[in-house]
């Protein structure tokens, strides 16, 4: 194993150069980096909120919109209940902050009250969600209680926080802070970025996707065109008419999606979003499309029509594609939003700014100093313990550090103070690999083997342990990366990089150095034996 094969030298050299190139922007001053040729890496380490601060966004759940949406649902329910009870009514609306209607036959007042009593759910701890009132001439009102509105907001905030976290996690490991503030606000802080546009793009969009049939009998000219009560007029983003009349009834919605991804249309080669529906969704979609061959259906995102194709043939199987006017980026973004789910309510940005580091400068300095001392102690200890071979291990550790910083800069993973502590511990585990190798060499030399053979066997026999230990760590890291969220994900990423670079440097780099040392000195003894 100590033979100095060309490929080993080449691999090590290339890795060292890559590590250097990608680490370099971190130590160069801005002026030099600005003149850096374009093909060289420019990215610096992405430091976390605790170390460098970042941008902050304060969102508020749009309570009015939430209330309106709930009232619209209740209106639908009320209509259904009265139909079921065979009660005639008129003037059903929900525009005045309550659901209002008038029954046609006053003698049915009691029956109507019973039917409407079934509308709405319950609020935890305070009874029914709605209050139904009526007067002597058959005017009914259904109002949301204060407790119901509060619960609605509470739920919307809690759900939004989870969905936002999922969306930001899908963007990569940015390690944001997301938390509730007050009753109806969500504060988001993300490291770095002075202009959090990308963040706003993925957080601000509700991403409510619905498939509704187009009402071809009622072409709309303007937003206020009068249409049948079962229809609604929506802005159309496709070329052609500016508005489109669609049926209010939702055939399939985004909640029935199991997966979405960016793809390309096989015919036109334009970027599209491909999606897959769950069992119920596929069934509904199949049914609706087979009943409506030759008619148009609309794909609606956040109340805007993005596509309204004619159904050519029944779509069974629950797979399909959306081909609005996408670029690869916007198709990817929509897929991300669809995968993480729709926000339960619209969010409004009410504050935007920058924040300083979480930790005080003194605390960060003390932390970094402590870790630097730790790193120096590792180097000193390994050199003291193993002499010249310790120097080789220390050099391998330097290569390891270069590669780790290079990889972290390249992938733009977020480095937090605990992340740095994790890196230092990764160094300790990297040293462990060298300790294992050297201890094996000592065993071999002491059982009478010649120096070079002992060194060679040391590598060979330690390799099983090293690989077993690191494969185990890698399994855990990859699982934590794919299942975990937020900081767990970031930690797992740093750990995986550390595993790969430490095995590489501890095994391959020291091997070259020791092989080269034997070749130069022609030593007959092992300095550590």
């Amino acid at each position, binding site marked *: 194993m100590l033979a100095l094969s060309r490929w080993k030298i080449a691999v090590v050299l290339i890795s060292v150069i890559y590590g250097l190139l990608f680490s370099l922007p971190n130590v160069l001053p801005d002026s030099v980096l600005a003149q850096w040729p374009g093909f060289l890496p420019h990215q610096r380490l992405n430091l976390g909120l605790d170390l460098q601060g970042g941008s902050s966004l304060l969102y508020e759940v749009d309570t009015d919109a939430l209330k309106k949406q709930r009232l619209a649902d209740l209106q639908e329910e009320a209509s259904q209940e009265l139909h079921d009870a065979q009660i005639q009514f008129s003037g059903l609306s929900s525009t005045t902050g309550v659901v209002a209607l008038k029954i046609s036959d006053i003698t049915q007042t009691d029956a109507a009250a019973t039917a409407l009593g079934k509308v709405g759910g319950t609020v935890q701890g305070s009874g029914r969600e709605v209050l139904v009132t009526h007067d002597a001439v058959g005017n009914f009102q259904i109002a949301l209680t204060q407790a119901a509105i509060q619960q609605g907001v509470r739920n919307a905030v809690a759900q939004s926080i989870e969905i936002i976290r999922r969306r930001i996690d899908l963007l990569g490991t940015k390690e944001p802070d997301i938390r509730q503030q007050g009753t109806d606000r969500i504060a988001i802080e993300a490291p770095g970025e002075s202009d959090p546009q990308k963040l706003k793009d993925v957080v601000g969009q509700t991403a409510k996707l619905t498939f509704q049939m187009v009402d071809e009998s009622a072409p709309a000219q303007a937003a206020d065109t009068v249409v049948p009560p079962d229809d609604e007029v929506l802005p159309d983003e496709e070329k052609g008419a500016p508005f489109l009349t669609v049926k209010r009834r939702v055939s399939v919605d985004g909640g029935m999606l199991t997966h979405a991804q960016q793809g390309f249309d096989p015919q036109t080669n334009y970027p599209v979003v491909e999606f897959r529906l769950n069992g119920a969704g596929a069934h509904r979609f199949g049914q609706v499309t087979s009943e409506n061959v030759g008619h148009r259906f609309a794909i609606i995102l956040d109340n805007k029509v993005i596509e309204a194709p004619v159904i050519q043939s029944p779509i069974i199987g629950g797979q399909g594609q959306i081909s609005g006017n996408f670029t690869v980026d916007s198709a990817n973004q929509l897929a991300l939003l669809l995968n993480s789910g729709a926000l339960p309510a619209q969010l409004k940005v009410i504050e935007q700014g920058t924040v300083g580091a979480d930790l005080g400068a*003194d605390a960060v300095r003390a932390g970094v100093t402590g870790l630097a001392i730790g790193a120096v102690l590792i180097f000193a200890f390994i050199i003291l313990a193993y002499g010249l071979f310790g120097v080789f291990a220390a050099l391998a550790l330097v290569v390891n550090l270069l590669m780790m910083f290079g990889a972290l800069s390249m992938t733009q993973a977020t480095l937090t103070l605990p992340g740095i502590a994790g890196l230092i511990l990764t160094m300790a585990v990297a040293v462990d690999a060298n300790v294992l190798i050297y201890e094996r060499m000592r065993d071999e030399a002491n059982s009478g083997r010649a120096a070079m053979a002992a060194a060679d066997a040391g590598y060979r026999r330690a390799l*099983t342990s090293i690989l077993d230990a690191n494969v185990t760590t890698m399994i855990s890291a990859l699982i934590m990366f794919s299942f975990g969220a937020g900081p*767990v994900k970031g930690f797992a990423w740093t750990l995986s990089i550390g595993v790969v670079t430490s095995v590489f440097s501890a095994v391959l780099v020291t091997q070259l150095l020791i092989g080269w040392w034997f070749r130069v000195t022609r030593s007959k003894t092992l300095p550590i034996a």
Partner: protein
Amino acid sequence: MSGPPQIPSQFQPPIVSAPRKSIWPFIHFVPRQTHFNFVGLAPYAAILSVLLVVASGVSVGLQQVNFGVDFVGGTKMEVVTTGAAPLGQIRGLLAGMGANDAEVQAVGAGGAAIQFRSVTGQSADAAPAFVQGKLQAQIPGLKVTGISEVGAKVSGELIWGGVEALGVALGLTLLYIWFRFQLQFGLGAILALAHDIVLTIGFLSITRIEVSMTSIAALLTVIGYSMNEKVISFDRLRENLRKYKTTPLREVINLSENERLSRTIITGSTALLALSGSVLNPASALFSLTATMAFGILIGTYSSIYVALPVILLWGVKRDDDEPAAINFQTARR
């Protein structure tokens, strides 16, 4: 750097330090073969482990862990000052008035966001006004522009996602160890890891170290290090089981642990040294994190010898195991 000529014999007695060896490198002074009776101490260790696990359980049951603002939320106060906000001064004042988990962040040019979980000696309702009064009295020109309750940074999904991830990771690790070694090795490792996790949580509970987002990182690091220890230990044991097919298991375990003792000491010292700079300075932002990690390294090393291996010893191992998966002596010897 010259050593004594090697005597080509398998039966050469272990030499601790031979004449003519220089002091440096000091690896020469680490005994190559020791004869500690590790297994002999196992019953006492078992009692110790049970006591520690019970103590951890009792402490967590009685006083939980000291959840920080990351987990339980707190009060956020936005202030503006004339000129740049004196962050250090504000931080000092907060510490002086007994604010727990205080965090001070610069906001824009002349502002700061202050955050705390609670104030010792003040009710939750009175705390914001108390802090506001104190700050305004001490820093002229400071105005409070907003006070609000903030929720936890760590949400339910985050915790359950993490626990789920950990569960799956441990499960797969068990399978991998089963595949590479034997089932009882995997179970020993998992039991030892559970032991480490319980004790580390107990450590957090007893020391009242504030549990924050970084504590999750500490716990994961502890698990990673501990797993590394277990696999290294198993590897040596497996090798010796193939080498000494008729020696009783407890002696093979003793031999293996003695053989890898110098490695255990050197690697353990390296890891502890790496953390020492932060552990020894309580003012460091990393003190609680590194203290937890250092505890975990000690416990992880201990549990490799005294939890994982005793499980294997009690269960027994298959000794006719000849699969060529591991070390191949013939190739090595050539």
